[in-house]
């Protein structure tokens, strides 16, 4: 049974359909990359998988529980098995980095403070921030914030690790370091990893499978090689970085002609 199963998911905002009848299975232990351009619906799909929004129709099963229909208590139980690193890192600025990482351990376990301290140090050491635990998030660089967010997401050693745009806004070296970190974490913790990104090198480095979204629909779902070999025009456009013809020259010409005629009159 897949650990996450999305079935016929439809999401609308003010009548505008953002996700259109999506279905996707994510298996235990695989790294699924949700790839797509801006506004393709990948972050919306992620919010549905996390139970942060209710869909118009369809279901999202996480570990066999339909989180679109379940009670708040069941949703909380499911969420304890998910670790999330948001695009903006979303670290609590009022807490130090180590307090951010310790938060879920303090709230959801009865571990002694000394054990929590040790576990926090280990999580921070894995992401290379062991010496920066006392700092506050605003004192960290962009890449360090992302790594701290990953450490916090890993605090309870979750079965599912979700990373929203982990390498967005980072320089290529730091982005590559983060990719290696994701691969390491997957190997060490045997977690199912879901990564939302539009960075192609990163996607092809870390993915087991890739789901390519375009205007709220999956254009292609498959292994890295299948996606690379895809002949779907939208997939090819994304992979080959072909720009859309946004500036429609005929429409611009017609507008200018009309404007000049109005000026002459």
């Amino acid at each position, binding site marked *: 049974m897949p650990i996450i199963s999305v079935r016929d998911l439809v999401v609308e905002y003010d009548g505008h359909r953002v996700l259109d009848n999506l279905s996707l299975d994510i298996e235990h232990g695989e790294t699924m990359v949700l790839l797509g351009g801006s506004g393709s619906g990948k972050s919306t799909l992620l919010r549905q998988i996390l139970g942060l929004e209710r869909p118009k129709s369809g279901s999202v099963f996480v570990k066999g529980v339909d989180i679109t229909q379940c009670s708040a208590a069941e949703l909380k139980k499911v969420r304890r098995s998910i670790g999330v690193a948001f695009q903006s890192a979303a*670290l609590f*600025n009022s807490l130090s980095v180590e307090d951010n990482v310790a938060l*879920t351990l303090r709230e959801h376990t009865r571990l002694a403070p000394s054990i929590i301290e040790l576990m926090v140090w280990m999580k921070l050491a894995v992401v290379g921030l062991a010496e920066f635990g006392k700092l506050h998030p605003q004192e960290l660089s962009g890449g360090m914030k992302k790594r701290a967010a990953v450490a916090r997401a890993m605090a309870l050693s979750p079965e599912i690790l979700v990373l929203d745009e982990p390498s967005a806004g980072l320089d290529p070296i730091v982005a590559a370091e983060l990719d290696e970190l994701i691969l390491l974490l997957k190997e060490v913790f045997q977690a199912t990893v879901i990564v939302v990104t539009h960075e192609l090198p990163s996607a092809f480095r870390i993915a087991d499978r890739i789901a390519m979204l375009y205007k709220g629909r999956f254009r292609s779902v498959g292994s890295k090689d299948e996606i690379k070999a895809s002949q779907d025009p939208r997939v090819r456009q994304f992979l080959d970085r072909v720009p859309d013809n946004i500036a429609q020259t005929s429409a611009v010409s017609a507008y200018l002609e009309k404007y000049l005629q109005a000026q002459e009159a």
Partner: protein
Amino acid sequence: MANVLEDVGRSTINHLDYVGSVNIQWWSTLRAIGNTLPFVGNRYRWQESVRQMLQIGVDALPMVCLMAICTGFILAMQGASELRRFGAIHYVIELVAVGFTRELGPLLTAIAVSGRSGSAFAAEIGSMKVAEELDSLKVMALEPIEFVVAPKYLAALITVPCLSVLSNVCGILAGGLFMFFSTHLSPSLYVRDVFESIQLRDVITGLIKSLAFATIIAQVSCLEGFRVRGGPDSVGRSTTSAVVKSTFLVIVADSVFTAIFYFTVNH
């Protein structure tokens, strides 16, 4: 005509929705507040409550005291200028003592706390929402109401009545200074007259008002933070809205409580 009715209907629904949202949030906070208490609750939540108490209470002390002293002087001087004409300047003591204990102490404190802490609550929660920190709490299986609102509410419930009592003392002290310099009334006589003027029920009604004001300020300000949509500019709007709405509702609640106490106690 249809448009006017439509606007009135929409506005009514929006206001009812707002009142409903405040009440739902209040109820959720009351259910979560047990976990914020010392000894029986979560110690990290209690630490956060203490931090909030320092911000709402201790940091506001100079401002509240100064406001109360100035208002005490104003009330005593305005009262004296009229009462002197009737040879009844002695009643200034009762005016200041009862006026502050029943009314001005709690009201001035509420206005100060609304401006200082209400805006801070809305800005903090609004910023957390914009930075996805509230979503982050939810996916960590933590309730934003319990984690963010309950410590603030508990802190407001404890500090606002304390500040009100202090405001009463400062206002009455200012009245005493005025009486000493204008009529050479001895401080001991002034204190005796103050205690003769005020009754226990005046203190209790003032404290009841303070608790209600603390509830309004904390709940309305936090709700404004949660209602932030979009970017940082929206945080600024919610901060303004928190101060305006909580101050307005505090004054409305004050008039309602005063009417209730007037008709139930005096009749």
